């Protein structure tokens, strides 16, 4: 192609075909991704529901283990409805064909979205309720409208951050539609009132979690952690942010982005809503690349090739992580043994990330949960694992009433074998009570008990 010739991607056959048949393509993609994750988890002998938050919720709701087999269907079903509702909402908001395609395509490749709907998360449920509320609000049948405030109310009960974000998003969507402005203002007013009342009288949680210990970088960049969005998607979102600056109707989305960014920055773990905005701007960025006239076609081809590879790489990393995420069947076997053989009052020390599944399956109390944010307990736990001398470790275990320690193969690999807790296990006060496929449960006998036994 010559310099000066208008080079765009309008003549790109494959993309053109994808735009045209996007509905079929995107639904097929949804089923392949979600079906793939669940199938591969089944083949890997992993318990179908992964992630700590799911077991935190299942423990709180006291849902018996027997129902677990049937529960796996709920998250993908919610995900599918969310996907449908997002598509419906995007059409209502007059997204162009290209914007819609890139938005939904990137959404499906975003780990924050797939993770939220392959397991049970409050953010996923909240988003579903919110989207359903919007759908009913715009429904032709007027009776349906009365249900939408109820759904909005349910959606904002998760925590304050989710409430603020959803109210802002609602404000952005509802006020865009002039014909329903009155009703929209009424609903928004009501939600703000409910939020204010609950804030002043019930002191609700600012943000639930974190349910796992991860750094901010790992929370945001999917390439480095388990959730988040890919770095290339974030870069594309940067391009989209610049490209959308001139569109006045999108100005409020910058406010939403700021709120969700600071929400994530403050408490680090709530990424689904920020991911939605990143995906939206990344879609706009892709449209900008698509419609832009490139002077150097080679640079365009090269850039698109690398961006596609980058997004696919992130997706594959996260796909693999979700497939291998714990708990495994071996862990469940150990937890079942604990349930049968360990006293109900026993306190069990392990890595904080194992706590939720342990609590749910073993029905015993773990020493430390990540969401407790208890620095003192974290320090004690670290000291027990790293201490070289029994004179340090034993008093700590005794003072904290820890009587059992659960080791996973990963823990044993990461801890030094010739010093620290693994070395101290040779002491007579530790007794191996159960071992299965590299997972071990050790019992610690406190001094008082030892004297009594003698």
């Amino acid at each position, binding site marked *: 192609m*010559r*310099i*000066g010739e208008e080079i765009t991607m309008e003549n790109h056959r494959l993309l053109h075909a994808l735009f045209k048949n996007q509905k079929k393509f995107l639904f097929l993609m949804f089923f392949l991704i979600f079906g793939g994750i669940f199938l591969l988890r089944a083949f890997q002998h992993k318990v179908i529901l992964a992630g700590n938050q799911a077991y935190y919720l299942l423990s709180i709701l006291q849902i018996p283990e027997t129902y677990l087999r049937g529960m796996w269907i709920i998250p993908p079903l919610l995900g599918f409805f969310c996907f449908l509702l997002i598509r419906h909402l995007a059409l209502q908001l007059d997204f162009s064909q290209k914007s819609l395609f890139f938005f939904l395509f990137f959404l499906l490749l975003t780990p924050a979205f797939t993770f939220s709907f392959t397991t049970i998360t409050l953010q996923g449920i909240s988003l579903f309720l919110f989207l359903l509320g919007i759908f009913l609000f715009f429904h032709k049948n007027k009776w349906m409208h009365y249900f939408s405030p109820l759904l909005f109310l349910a959606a904002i009960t998760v925590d304050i951050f989710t409430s603020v974000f959803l109210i802002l998003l609602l404000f952005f969507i509802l006020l865009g539609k002039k014909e329903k402005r009155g009703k929209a203002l009424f609903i928004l007013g009501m939600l703000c009132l409910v939020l204010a009342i609950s804030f002043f009288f019930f002191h609700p949680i600012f943000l639930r979690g974190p349910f796992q210990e991860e*750094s901010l*970088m*790992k929370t945001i960049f999917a*390439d*480095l*952690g388990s959730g988040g969005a890919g*770095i*290339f998607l974030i*870069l594309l979102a940067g391009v989209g942010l610049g490209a959308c600056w001139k569109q006045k109707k999108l100005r409020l989305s910058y406010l939403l982005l700021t709120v969700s960014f600071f929400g994530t920055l403050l408490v680090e773990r709530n990424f689904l809503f920020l991911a939605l905005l990143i995906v939206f701007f990344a879609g706009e960025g892709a449209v900008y690349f698509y419609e832009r006239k*490139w*002077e*150097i076609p*080679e*640079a*365009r081809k*090269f*850039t698109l090739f*690398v*961006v596609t*590879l*980058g997004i696919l*790489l992130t997706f594959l*990393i996260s796909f693999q992580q979700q497939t291998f995420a714990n708990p495994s069947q071996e862990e469940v076997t150990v937890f079942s043994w604990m349930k049968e053989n360990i006293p109900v009052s026993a306190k069990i020390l392990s890595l904080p990330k194992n706590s939720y599944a342990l609590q749910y399956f073993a029905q015993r109390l773990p020493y430390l949960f990540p969401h407790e944010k208890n620095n003192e307990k974290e320090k004690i736990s670290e000291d027990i694992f790293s201490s070289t001398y029994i004179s340090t470790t034993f008093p700590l275990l005794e003072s904290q009433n820890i009587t059992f320690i659960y080791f996973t193969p990963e823990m044993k690999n990461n801890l030094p074998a*010739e*010093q620290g807790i693994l070395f101290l296990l040779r002491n007579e006060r530790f007794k191996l009570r159960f071992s299965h496929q590299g997972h071990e449960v050790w019992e610690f006998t406190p001094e008082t008990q030892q004297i009594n036994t003698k």
Partner: protein
Amino acid sequence: MEKTKQFLWGIFFCVLAVRLILAFTLPTFTYESYFHLRQTEHITATGLPLYHDPLSYGGRELIFLPLFHYLAAFFDLFLPLEFVAKVLPNLLLAGLVLLTYFIARELGYSTHGSLFTAGIAGFLPAIFSTNAFTPYSLFLPLIFFAIYAFLKLQQKGIDEEKSEEQKQKQINIKKNSRMQKKYVYLYLIAFLLATLTSPATILLLLGFGIYFLISLAENKKLPRDEWEIFIASTFFYLWIQLVFFNEVIKKEGVSFIWQNIPTAILPQYFPPVSVSHGIILVSIIPLVAGIFVVSRSLASAKDAKTFLLTGLAAAAIIFTFLRLLPIKLGLSFLGILLAILFANFYDGIFPFLRKTKLSFTLQRITTILFLGLLLTTVYPALSTALKQSIPFSEEVKAFDWLSTHSEKDATILALGEEGHLLTALGKRKNVMDDQFSLRDDAEERFTEVNTLYLTLFQTQALQLLEKYQVKYVVFTPHARQHYQLKRLRYLSPECFHLVYNHDDIKIYERKCALEKK
């Protein structure tokens, strides 16, 4: 023209000859080179880099960019590795003579000025480590080739402006289109290869970024093709880093940038910039000339191409100052840029002098300049080459001795710096070396290796030697000098048998163990 070519090739061969003479005169390689030699050897034998190293730190994972090693391994297929390791880096770095000349010419500088540039770049003290077999010897030529191709892309705009007739313009556009395509590909290939050679390629991206900022500040309209090239390069760079260093970034987070180097030895890798040493390494005359040219071009805001060099130089300074780049690499990059800017200075100073009463002394000034450069560039370069940090050939022999006289699974204590020498020649496990990436215990090992050389107490030494399952302890003149020690103070004949004692190098075998109660 023919004479210029002869001069240019003359400088090239002169630089190459001096480098090769020095390389073959000194019998060994720099300490870090032994890591790259071992990787090259492994690629030649198996076709794959040694990402799981069973000897380093007693066995560990290690991720690095492998292009340089593959290139060396290719030559190793039909030439002896030692010969390849001495010739290839020197040939590549001597290639900078040609590259800098063409870059200077591309920037519109005179042939005389460009020849001076070539000479300065060839004898730049910062890159005159003739016995270093490291990826930087490939990285620097690649990065400057990418800069050359990028400058060639800029040529298009100038030609279009010059053509007046519509027909001629069309012909120019067609011609330039083909030319541009060629240079786009050359740029992309050079950038791609540089990205696969060293993560320091980010220097180029940051340099472009600063160049764009300067251009915007000076109200210059940025050509779209430059933006497009920049975007393509940024995306590719990030992708490669993510593909190769994903695990490292995941594990080390931000400290990945500092290669997980223990804080105690960070100053050794990123020493605070000593002004006098820095000036010697980049050479004083090009430095003064460079500062003059940059300040003049920023003040006049005319020369867009100088903005690019200014941006690149600023990137090198920022990265070196923030300790994101090894000092030597930062100074090498900066030194070459200053050598290029020297041509601009040369071209500016002579027309100015012609207009003054000093015009009759032009010939003499050129001679003085030439002699000044000889004194401030060539002499420090030779001195740098002769003072390279390399092991003595006796030390090399001692490590070689270990490969035949120690148990195959033995772990051997040597200085961290000598770690690669031990794994490459001794073919035995070391306690530590200077590849700290992906090692959680790098800091701990560093402290404990120091303790093992400095402690007075045998029980402490034995405890640590047992911890790392060390069977032999190597005590070289280098270690003696490093710790200012005459001998290891905890040694006793009952526990440590002297098994090697030649040329002041001692190897002890541990015979004792602490009894565990």
